[in-house]
């Protein structure tokens, strides 16, 4: 399996490039990507569902119940339109854009901040409500996808959970469920990204990915 920090397509900027062979098959230059024998799969939600089905993981991750599964898909659909792309922006404005000498205008940073606040409200009101987890009383793929995305702005100094006790309690529950060892192992690289930047430990992106990075930056609304 191939991963990069921060989800999305950012690994291309850290210099840890997957094999050329995978690039050719995966023209989107995207992580995560999965290779299982000859079978190659991209898109995080598709990979999570594939792993859940193939390895018959505990039912709560991707419930077999018609309604419970529909709730997971409802979240994943909303997540793709409303969470992804929005919560990744602070990492771009604070870390990745400066890495190639680009400054994102304050107006865009502010707009992103407003959009994040609106989406967090929807996340609380429509999905979390008074439940333990986003799609029910047990943790599912939805919680995993959501938490990972929300931790990106947290890593660069946005306290998204301040003034949101329900959401903060949800975060605690998901983290407790995953266990602190796994959590630390998974989030070490992202949670100290600012420190890495200050110490100039983040490798300069190779020139061939600059164009892609500029395109991503110009797409920030």
């Amino acid at each position, binding site marked *: 399996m191939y991963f990069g920090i921060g989800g999305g397509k950012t690994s291309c900027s850290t210099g840890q490039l997957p094999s050329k062979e995978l690039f050719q098959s995966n023209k989107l230059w995207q992580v995560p990507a999965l290779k299982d024998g000859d079978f190659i799969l991209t898109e995080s939600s598709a990979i999570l569902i594939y792993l859940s089905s*193939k390895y018959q993981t505990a039912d709560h991750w991707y419930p077999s119940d018609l309604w419970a599964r529909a709730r997971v898909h409802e979240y994943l659909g909303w997540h793709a339109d409303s969470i992804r792309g929005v919560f990744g922006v602070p990492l771009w404005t604070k870390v990745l854009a400066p890495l190639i000498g680009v400054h994102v205008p304050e107006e865009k940073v502010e707009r992103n901040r407003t959009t994040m606040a609106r989406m967090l409200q929807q996340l609380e009101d429509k999905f979390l409500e008074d439940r333990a987890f986003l799609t029910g009383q047990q943790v599912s793929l939805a919680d995993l996808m959501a938490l990972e995305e929300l931790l990106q702005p947290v890593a660069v100094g946005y306290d998204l959970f301040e003034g949101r006790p329900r959401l903060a309690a949800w975060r605690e529950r998901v983290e407790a469920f995953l266990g602190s060892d796994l959590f630390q192992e998974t989030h070490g690289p992202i949670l100290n990204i600012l420190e890495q930047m200050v110490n100039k430990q983040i490798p300069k992106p190779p020139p061939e990915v600059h164009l892609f990075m500029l395109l991503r930056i110009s797409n920030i609304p």
Partner: protein
Amino acid sequence: MGLELYLDLLSQPCRAVYIFAKKNRIPFELRPVDLLKGQHLSDAFAQVNPLKKVPALKDGNFTLAESVAILLYLTRKYKVPDHWYPQDVQACALVDEYLAWQHTALRRSCLRALWHKVMFPIFLGEPVSPEMLEATLAELDVTVQLLEDRFLQNKTFLTGPHISLADLVAITELMHPVGAGCQVFEGRPRLAAWRQRVEAAVGEDLFREAHEVILKAKDSPPADPTIKQKLMPLVLAMIQ
């Protein structure tokens, strides 16, 4: 009350849900929600979908938003032919992969093309700068090329030899720029041939019926000022 679907066929995911339900003879009550009149913003509709978006589904006391979730719910509940969303783990994963990709790629490009080329200038009376329009159409071109090169390749359908949810979701997206007058299939014989196969698989009549609204979008009368004021913030949020 049985299955109710809240749809406006102006919306691309609504067309996918509509075609899927009709093609598979799933009985439902159509609950029209007129987006251009702002009906999705009403309190009554918020009871069905607090996100105030179409499509939405109501099945007894169960309500569900998000087109992909709705399509998958219908697939499982009504036991439709396997090719739509195969039981085979890898074949199914390829459909999931496409459905995830389109959210951030084709959906964005097709929506922007329609709004920048037609709905802003004609319906809302707001001019779009030539630079903005050019950038939007260039992005659409890149995304459609990706669809052809990365997903369709030389296959009959996007994820294999048979039609799946991926094809339905893709064709209903592409008809958005077609409705705006963009020639997305021109110079792309592989994609044009795929379109013919998809249309034949769902049935020409059903396909035409589902796309009547979008193909007339160019002739929308201008919005009245109250409606425009109501819709503008949402349109801007959606299109940014």
